Each structure stands twice: as C-alpha cells, then as structure tokens.
C-alpha cells in the first residue's frame, strides 16, 4: 500500500535572472552556459537517480519568472512534490520576493498542509563577489518561515547544486511517507505510475 513514489515533481521558482534554468542544467547535464537564454514559457528536464536502492525519476520544472506570465505558469504548480525557492545572493530584491513566491506556490499548487510542504531554499550565484544577501539573513528567513533547508549554490561552479536536489528528493519522499500514515478518510489517494523513461528522459 505504501509504495514509494517513483516520479517526483520538483519546481524551481524565483525572480527572473536568479539562475533557475542554470541550476537545472547544471544538475541534469552538468554544464553551465553563461549566455543561456531567459526562459519563455515552461520547460522541464528529467533526471533519474537511485534512492535507497530504488530508481526515482526527478522531473524538474523551470518557469519564466516575470510577473506577466503568472497565469500561464501557475497551472504547472499542481502536483509538485517539492518546491525550490531560489534567489540570487547578489540581488536583494530577489531575496525579498521569496515570501511572495512561496505564497504564490501555496496558493496555486493546491497544497493541503502548507506548513508541512517541503520547501528548499537556494541562494544562487555564490561565486559572485558582490553579495547583497548574507548567509545569516537567508538562514534566518528559512528558520522563521518553516525551518527550510538552505543551500548556497553556484550553478556556474557547481557548488552545492547536487546536494540541494538530493535534499529536495529526501524531503519530498519523507513528506510522502508521512502522508501515507495519515490518510484522511475523505481523501482520494493517488499513486503515480512512473512514466516511460525513454520517452521523457533527456
């Protein structure tokens, strides 16, 4: 009955230009392209990894960060197992907007218990020397907002990127296990079938 999920949907959210696509590409293809286009619309990549001896497909969704595209972005929040709230340590505004992104996600993702939903916070671009957000500030925010794990990442030099995604996977699976033990009677239980890996893996 408590079969573990084999497909996890993870979504990257944050202001335009904080490096969401670069983080995704670093993790999935282990490449960094300083001149990557900004994202238009919605994209996703798959990555298969092994967790406790079983295969898990991570489906990483990447969206356009501009306000204008909200109505076409938010439908894709549904069904997410984990949300990576991303800001750039050299852009204070992107840090201040984290709580808006969190709210937007909770609002549109149909999260049943927001306080138990696994968020992971990424402060990207730590390779940049001119920081506007200190690690202490960021950790403080994470602590105050639900004790979220915080990672200082650099898509450019690969710092902490894989670690952050692995944490996301563990949090998502833990939340799933927890939910399995507390099935409210009127809840429809959902199992997700793994999608055919050949069809959607890049």
């Amino acid at each position, binding site marked *: 009955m408590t079969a573990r999920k084999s497909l996890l*949907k993870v979504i990257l959210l944050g202001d*335009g*230009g904080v490096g969401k696509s670069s983080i995704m590409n670093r993790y999935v293809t282990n490449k960094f392209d*300083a*001149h*990557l*286009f*900004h994202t*238009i*619309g*919605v*994209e*996703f990549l798959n990555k298969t990894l092994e967790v406790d001896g079983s295969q898990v497909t991570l*489906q990483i969704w990447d969206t*356009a960060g*501009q*306000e*204008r*595209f*909200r*109505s*076409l972005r*938010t*439908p*894709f929040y*549904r*069904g997410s197992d984990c949300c990576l709230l991303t800001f750039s340590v050299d852009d204070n*505004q992107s840090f201040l907007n984290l709580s*808006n992104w969190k*709210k*937007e996600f909770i*609002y*549109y993702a*149909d999260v*049943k218990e927001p306080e138990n939903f696994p968020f992971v916070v990424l402060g990207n671009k730590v390779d940049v020397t001119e920081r506007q957000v200190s690690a202490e500030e960021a950790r403080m925010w994470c602590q105050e907002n639900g004790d979220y794990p915080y990672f200082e990442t650099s898509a450019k030099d690969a710092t902490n990127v894989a670690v952050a995604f692995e944490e996301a996977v563990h949090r998502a699976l833990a939340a799933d296990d927890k939910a399995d033990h507390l099935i409210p009677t*009127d809840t*429809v*239980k*959902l*199992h*997700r*079938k793994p*999608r055919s890996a050949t*069809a*959607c893996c*890049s």
Partner: protein
Amino acid sequence: MAELLKVIFEHEGIFLHPSPDEGGPEQDLLVSGTLRVLEKDAEILVEYRPLEDSVDPSNMLCAGQDSSSVVEWAQCPGEKSQSRQQLETQQSYETEWDMVNAISFRKKNCTNGEGSLNHSQERSRWAFSVNISDLKSITVKDEGWTFLILKLKDAFSSLPALHFHQGGSKDFLDCLRRFALLTECPEDKTCLMVSTPNRALSQSFENLLDDNNFGLVHKFKRDPYVATLGSFSKVTNYIYDALRGAEEQQQRPPEEVADLLGEVIPGLEINQQEEPGFEVITRIDLGARPRVSRAEPLSADDWSKHQDPEGRMKDEATLRQKIFKGGLCHAVRKEAWKFLLGYYPWSSTLEERKSVLKAKTDEYFRMKLQWKSISEEQERRNSRLRDYRSLIEKDVNRTDRTNRFYEGLNNPGLTLLHDILMTYCMYDFDLGYVQGMSDLLSPILYVMENEVDAFWCFVSFMDQMHQNFEEQMQGMKTQLIQLSTLLRLLDLAFWNYLESQESGYLYFCFRWLLIRFKRELSFQDVLRLWEVMWTGLPCQNFHLLICCAILDSEKQKIMEENYGFNEILKHINELAMKLDVEEILQKAEGICLQIHSCKDLPHSISSILGFDAKRQVPNQAGLGGAPRPAPQQDACSNGHCRESRPQNSCRGVSTS
C-alpha cells in the same frame, strides 16, 4: 439584476452539520435548507440555501417551484461571508503581489448588493452556489442516512457536507448525471469523480428538444451528415474519457494542469461554435495538399530594379510576392525591412524618406533623453521604471549572446539593445518591458545596425505583437484558440489525440507564438521567416499555418509514441534549432492553398485566414496576383482587430 433561472432539481430538508469551531457561538448547530440544481445562462449550478435564507425577501423576490419563474439573483450574502476568509487571503495577495484572480471565484454569480448585513447573515453564511464544472468529486457516505461531500477543483474553497436526512441523495446524483459524468474512483468506491467534458454534447442533445434552440436541428435537417459527424466526434471524446477513468487517476497532475490552463485560455473546449446557429466544423474533405516550391532570395540587383529615379518602390505587389517566395539577400534587408515593416512608405521618394528619418530621429532621442535624464533619486521613487530597467539589464545579457553582434563583454550591440528597450518603455510605458521583447528586437537591430532605424522598425513589429505581451495576454489566447480551430479542420484525428492528452489548448505552442519562432530557428533562419511573414502573404495569420506545418511533421511521432501531456510539451520544446525554415514555409504555403481551394469553408476558418475579404489568394506561380495587405491588416494577424467576441460567448452560444 434579474436573471432567468430554471430550477432543475429541488429538495428540501438537506442539513449541514457544522463542526463546533465552524459553528462559532452556536454549538451543535444543525442547518436545514434547500438544495437546488439550477440552470442559469446555460450554466448548471448547485445551490444550497438555509431555510431562513430562502424565505428572506431581500434575497429572492419570487422563488417559485415553477421552472419558468424569474428568481431575483441580486445577492447571496451567505456566499459572500462564507468565502470572506478566502477573499481576505486573496486581497492580501493582491496588494503585495498584484495577483490576478485567474483561478478561483471566476464564475461566482454573486453581485454585491447593499443591505447584506442583516440578521440572517449568521445563518446565510452557510449558503453556497457552485458551478457544476467547478466540482471535482462527490464522496457518498452513509451514517444511517446518506451524506455527500462535494469537493471543488479549486482546493481553497471547501463545501460543508450535505446530509440527506429526508432522502433524495440518489435523485440529486441522478440529476447531476444529466450534466456531468460521474465516474467511480478506483481507489475509493465511495468517491465519484465529476467531469464535464461532455457538457456541450449533453446540452446539444437538450437543444435538439428545445424549440427555442433550433439551430442544430435546422442544420441537421439541412445537412445531417455534417451535423451528426460533429456530434459524434464529441461522443468519441466522451466515451474516451469515460473509458479512461482509472488511467486518468495516475496522471492526475498533468490533467489538473490542463484544466487550469483551460481556464486561462477560455473558449477552447467548444471553439468550433462561434456564432448562433451552431456551426459545426467537421471532417471536410480538404483535397490533396499542393506541392509548392520556394524560390531564390531577392537579390540587390532585383531590388534596385524596382526603384524609380526618385527612389519610389515600383510594383510593390510583385516585390512582396518575390520576398514571400524566397526572402531577401542579406544585403537588401537593411533597406527592404523598413518598407516591409511600414517605417517607410513604398511610394515615398528618397527626399521624403530623408525627412521621415529626421523627424523620427528627433523623436527617438527626445524619448531616450527622458529615461537617460532621470536621476537616481527619481528612479528610487519610480518602481515600475526600476523594475523595467532591472529586467532589461538581465535579459540583454541573456539574448543571442553567441551571435557576433552581441557576444563578449561590453559589446556595443548590448548597449544598443538595452537603450532601445529602455526607450521603448518611454514610448509605451503602460506595456513597458515584457520578457520576449528582447528576442524580437535583437534580429532587427542586427539587420539595421542603427539605433534609430532599429527602434522604429521594432515599434512597427511590436504593433503587430503588442497583444501578446499585454497584461491579460489576450493576443496569446486568441492565437491559441485560432490555432486550435485550424488544426481541428486540418487534422481531426490529431486534434482529438491532443484533446485526449489534455493538450487541446496547445499550450506547448506558447513560445512559438509569443516571439514568432525566434527561439525555434537559427538566427539566420529567423531573419528569413520574419521577412516572409511581413509580406502579409499568402493569407492573414500565416504564422498559424506555420504552426500547423510543424505540428504536421511531428504528429506521427507524438501519436506513435503515445506521448502524454508532459512528453508533448517536452518534445515540442526540444524541437528548437532542429527545424528547417524552407521546409516549414513550403509546407505552410501548401496548407494555405489546400484550405483555400476547399469549398464550403466554415466561416470561422475563412475569417481567421482572411479569406472573407478577398477571395483571391496567390496561386503558386501567380506573381502580382496577390492582394497587398494594408499595414493595419498585419495588426489583424494578431487578433488586434478581430471582432472581439465576448470571452465566453462560445460557451453561451453552444448551449443557449
């Protein structure tokens, strides 16, 4: 405001059992009331009203059993207070993040009447009214009596359980089955999933019986084959949905995404009916698709041959036709694009163009000075300008950086891109800068190699693309709907497949349409594609046929591999840079000729492609036969001056 309501089902003695914390001061409260299923404006509503509420004269002027009675629908205070908490949450979002209420509360019929704060409010807070299409599931439970738990698609609102102490739950469910498909959830036998994809069908059958709506019947008599086939294609979908049941459960997230996208892009589900009389587009025999050939790009020689001694361009129609057929040699682009984009009139002399240029140069620098002269202090108080600037700076660094014109640090191309986009913000501050615009400017600047010319050509291009970037993205919605209409005519089987994969609204074409294939083709191919499209030939909205051409090439793969919602999106995204522009243009022109030669073309199609105005479209060889679209018609190609039918008219028309 009085509306005509039809009561389809009514049952008294339905109880709510509010939990103590919900009930507030009134513990152990039992609320008794009436449950109704109503038809209002062709929408099916499930409405619950507590007893006091239903006799409150301020709520209803005359609520009768008689199905033809007019019920005052002035206000529903209960609904208002019930959702007060949610509204508050929402409002706090609006102030902080300027949320658009895109998802929930879209079909609330409640108008805020005065005097809602009366003594009945405490009780009337339990009243609710929901559209049947907003229902996600109904769980049937038994505790000696039956009670139903209604779940909404919008998970933020929940409804109280309905307790049928005096029976009637079966009748209620049977009534709902007339308007929605209730399928047992395989995980939980007590749970019925509600889906309403067949609403158009069930209602068109109802319409058959309804004298007031003889549209379909009329069509049926005139052309039974076409009318039935149209309905059958709906039946197919309906049966398909019904059979899918279990499978669907496991793919719930994409399906929900699709549902929500469907709300963002309204009007797609029954897009084939766009006017009273129930026009059914169906498998019309399109005939063979003619093979067309492309030509060589127009040479500099050929271009100058079309210029008279004063510099006027002669025989514009021929020029357009040649450009359509083969594009332009790169050397000609800098000049020819100014004509194609309407910056220079074709009939202007060199002298006239000089004075145009002078005036436009002055105007450009005046606007450029406006943002250049804003002090840091001022900008600190101008958050919109600040936001535009910040996003432009970020995006300029992420636009075509591998192109020689924009590569490296401190490339002057980057500064120009930045300055023109900033100046465009001053030209159109309401729109400002929206992501995607740097993609539209970059090729123009690359060709013009001149700030002022690039700016004004960009302005012309933006005139065509403006609606794509507006707050409500109406241009995008219009185009997606039009594309769906075209695809349905061209390839019903594929369209049905996409529908079955929740992809019928063609969201995966979003990037294609937003920036006219800029990211899908190599830089040089984008130049070719755009100049061909700017000729306005061979029909209005040719870019939609380009979409159809690409999809036509991909459909086999998509269907054979049985791609679902996510895979389709991924597959289409990954086509980028793998497409051949000449092949696409050839196919798209063939499709245009194929559709054009079709007799009895549905009005919806001919109006999208502009075949109504001029029943004269290029034959393949015919140079000069093509009409010259006025510059304004280009704007039409984006839905600009389409007669804008009301958002939900499709729905209304098919059912009223």
